[in-house]
């Protein structure tokens, strides 16, 4: 996918910048982007190691069993292919918990750990498995109880009621989640059918 999107982005924007005489902006933009990628990685390195460490503690205690029991019906429905992989189930459960609690910083490392585990039993190492796709879709639709970042921005801008958006966010994010899950399920079914024919 990115082998297609990435060159298109670059070709379109670089040639447009050259023809419209917007080169100065583009030049400073190039350095800014590499710089912000480095900054993000350094920040990420901290949270990534922290949460990978914490999850490793959690998976060695009974907490993970409690969380798993609670989320079992959901996981069974969304990830029917990993019935026997408790490690992947554990990591996906923790990723869900972090997402729901609005801990974006923690959700990514946990999700990436789950990807690693799913990759172990993936038959085609260069292609996303069905479970991986579901995990990614769930993370892009991020259902969360408290949208912390946007509430912080709203109150910094002097909103009279920064938290008024919480319930609308719940409804919108549930709609997005249902849409994402249904289309993923549908496309998985469709791709299976095509393989059988």
């Amino acid at each position: 996918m990115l082998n297609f999107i990435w060159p298109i982005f670059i070709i379109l924007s670089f040639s447009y910048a050259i023809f419209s005489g917007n080169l100065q902006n583009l030049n400073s933009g190039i350095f800014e982007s590499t710089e912000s990628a480095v900054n993000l990685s350094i920040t990420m390195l901290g949270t990534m190691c922290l949460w990978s460490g914490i999850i490793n503690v959690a998976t060695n205690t009974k907490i993970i069993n409690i969380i798993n029991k609670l989320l079992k019906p959901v996981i069974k429905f969304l990830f029917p292919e990993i019935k026997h992989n408790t490690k992947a189930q554990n990591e996906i459960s923790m990723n869900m918990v972090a997402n729901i609690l609005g801990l974006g910083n923690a959700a990514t490392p946990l999700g990436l750990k789950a990807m690693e585990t799913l990759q172990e039993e993936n038959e085609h190492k260069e292609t996303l498995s069905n479970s991986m796709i579901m995990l990614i879709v769930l993370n892009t639709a991020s259902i969360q109880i408290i949208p912390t970042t946007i509430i912080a921005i709203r109150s910094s801008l002097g909103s009279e009621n920064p938290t008024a958006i919480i319930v609308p966010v719940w409804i919108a994010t549930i709609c997005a989640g249902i849409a994402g899950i249904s289309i993923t399920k549908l496309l998985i079914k469709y791709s299976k059918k095509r393989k059988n024919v």
Partner: protein
Amino acid sequence: MIDVINFISNLAMPFIILIIVFYGFLEKKEVFDKFLEGAKDGIKIVVNIFPTLIGLFLAVGALRNSGIIDIAIRLIEPILHFVNFPSEIMPLAILRPISGSSSIAIATDIMKNFGVDSQIGIMASVIMGATETTLYTIAVYSSSVKIKKTRFVLIASLTADIVGIIASVVICRFLS
């Protein structure tokens, strides 16, 4: 109300860490060793996704700085106008799946210009709360395990985004 919510969101992270460490300690596990073991894996993950980040940020930064995004918005405008989608929100709707930092900047800008508590301001907030930076998520998740063929994941997540954005607009119209 805001105090309670702030308290809860501040509590979430410390509470989780506390519970996990406390439980591990109670069960007499080697908590610190287990922590170190896991933390080491974190380094590997970041190293794997770093090249992706550079590439992605370069492309998205160029898209934004070259001014081509404005052209894209102007091209799509008539269609969205036709379905009665508020044009003030459009730049946000287009950039949201592509770039996290620039969509935050645009949302903040919209809230400043139209008022945080105006209908448009609330729409921008709800869209930000209900969606994610899809392209970034897909790229980071796939590249962390060195996967190249992503099948229909982009279509599925973009559908979720579009539904989320439309739902945000409809809900906010309904509310005010």
